[in-house]
């Protein structure tokens, strides 16, 4: 326990962790501020104004279209029957309203964004937490004090994950609160039944899972390579090679469901419950016309993949530490 508290203090005392967290908070505040100022509530006046504008435009369009039809009819031999006639449906009042924040519809995207940002933070902080210890020799000192390597490393990881959980839970709650306020002041909270709230909570839980996964993988990679840069290198390598490189190669090769090879798709599937990929090259004839082939990635599938990666990286980090010479 004493080791655990010491490690938690070491993590929270580090200026790197603090500054990074501060940066993340600033970015999140900017996003929330942007959402606040770019949305407006649909008060009766706003709705009435939009309705009036829609009506006005509809009338104008009708007048214009009639004028064009007349002009067309004046010219002999031209086919005027197929000309567009505006309908009411082409001028809906919603399209003339300023954008409004529908909590039920839009909070999912906000939550996914939060999870992604926090996951990046967790990866970097996790990697530098153990990486800096290895490079500075602090790890060796610690092992002289507590010559139980696996215990030391897993306690460090535990301290990291618990701290990340606390940070994520606190930030998620504030995030939800802020968007509830935005929904109330600049949009609507309509449809937020207790069932809807429950699914928000579950989504945030999966977001927490993603953050912890990223933190543990960053930690594991930096520990394997005994340097923060190794984890960062692997991350950049994966992004460049796997995402851009593979993405380009696969799209040249015309591979089906290209997105299934990209990590963000899986992360989104995990947080959003599922992602449906469509292949428009395939045409399955149906009464509605062409229906594309689809591939649905569900959150248990994504969870399985992330779990396997997690076990592999952290397991390998522990296993190599067991037997390696520390010089």
């Amino acid at each position, binding site marked *: 326990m004493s080791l655990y508290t*010491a490690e938690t203090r070491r993590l929270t*005392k580090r200026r790197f962790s603090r500054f990074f967290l501060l940066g993340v908070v600033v970015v999140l505040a900017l996003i929330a501020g942007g959402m606040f100022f770019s949305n407006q509530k649909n008060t009766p006046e706003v709705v009435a104004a939009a309705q009036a504008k829609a009506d006005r435009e509809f009338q104008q369009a009708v007048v214009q279209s009639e004028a064009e039809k007349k002009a067309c009819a004046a010219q002999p031999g031209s086919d005027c029957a197929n000309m567009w006639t505006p309908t009411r449906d082409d001028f809906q009042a919603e399209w003339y309203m300023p954008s409004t924040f529908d909590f039920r519809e839009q909070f999912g995207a906000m939550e996914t964004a939060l999870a992604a940002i926090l996951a990046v933070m967790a990866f970097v902080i996790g990697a530098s937490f153990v990486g800096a210890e290895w490079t500075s*020799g602090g790890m*060796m000192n610690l092992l*002289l*004090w507590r010559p139980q390597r696996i215990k030391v490393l897993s306690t460090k990881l535990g301290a990291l994950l618990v701290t990340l959980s606390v940070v994520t839970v606190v930030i998620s709650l504030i995030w939800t609160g802020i968007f509830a306020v935005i929904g109330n002041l600049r949009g609507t909270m309509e449809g937020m039944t207790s069932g809807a709230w429950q699914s928000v909570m579950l989504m945030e839980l999966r977001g927490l899972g993603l953050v912890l996964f990223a933190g543990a993988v960053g930690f594991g990679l930096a520990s394997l390579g005994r340097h923060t840069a190794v984890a960062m290198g692997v991350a950049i390598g994966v992004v460049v090679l796997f995402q851009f490189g593979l993405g380009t190669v696969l799209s040249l090769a015309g591979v089906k469901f290209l997105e299934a090879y990209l990590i963000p798709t899986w992360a989104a599937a995990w947080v959003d419950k599922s992602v449906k990929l469509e292949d428009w090259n395939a045409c399955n004839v149906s009464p509605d016309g062409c229906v594309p082939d689809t591939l649905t990635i569900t959150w248990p599938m994504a969870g399985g993949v992330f779990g396997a990666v997690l076990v592999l990286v952290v397991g390998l980090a522990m296993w190599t530490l067991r037997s390696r010479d520390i010089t």
Partner: protein
Amino acid sequence: MSAVLEIQGLQKTYRSRKGVRKALDGFDMVVEAGQVHGFLGPNGSGKTTTLRTLLGLIRPNAGRMAILGREVPAALPEVAGSVGAIVESPQFFGNFSAQDTLLLLADAGGVERARVFEVLELVGLRDRAKDRVKTYSLGMKQRLAVASALLKNPRLLILDEPANGLDPGGIREMRTLMRNLAESGMTVVLSSHILGEIQLICDSVTIIAAGRRVAAGSVAEVLAQHATSSVRVRLESAVDLPASAAALRELGAQVSLEQDHLMVSGIAQPSAITRTLALRNVFVSELAPVSVDLESVFLELTGTAPVAGEHRQVDQTVMAQAGPAHGGWGQ
């Protein structure tokens, strides 16, 4: 007296892409309780490797080790609380202050926090304890390292080159500190290249070369066993020096011809020198036995004395003679 530290037949081979390197080749070492024990050897002879192995940072290929009567590495978690160590200028996380660094270690090892301020006082860092370690000088970092080793109030203190970077005052303080610690019952193992220092503070020494023990025992014993006691001979007139040297060599002595005197060794009775020279009408103006010091014994034993016109390379030391490694001194 009981052995606080015992090592038998320790072997360590480093493997890398460039091949294998035998860093330890059947090394033995015994340190008795309450002693200050010097651990000496040329660069690359395996001192740090031995200490790292002992402290569980490196896995040996063969050999047996025990600390405070317990087999290590198996019992290391239990004995770790009574062993304080620094291994080759340890580094600390630069952005933390000395005080934070030690407080974190104290927490991790279950040591009372008050002890942190005691050791900071002890190593003379009290007034700079709140500065970041990054801003410390070499000697200040070294003092911090010593403080971290003392934190547990250990029964066995292992210091790999603790004097590295210390100022003369610091070295002297370190010397007194070691003596005081030993008097309070702590056993200290000290590796250093400053042999004058070792001779002043150590009760016993182990000398290692090329991964094997070449000498061990109390300082006096090692000096006595290996001192090829020599005599400084000055003559009335320096012109006679070359001829006299030749005459003494005929007698079977080893003679080195210096600027204004001769260094003669390998002669049982100094009177033989005066007699021989007097017969040739050469008269001695000074005949002084030269007391050997640890440094010359060290150079002789490890075969690392500089030779004029040669640049000795690091692994060029005596290769301890083959065979079982039990032939050490002082057993």
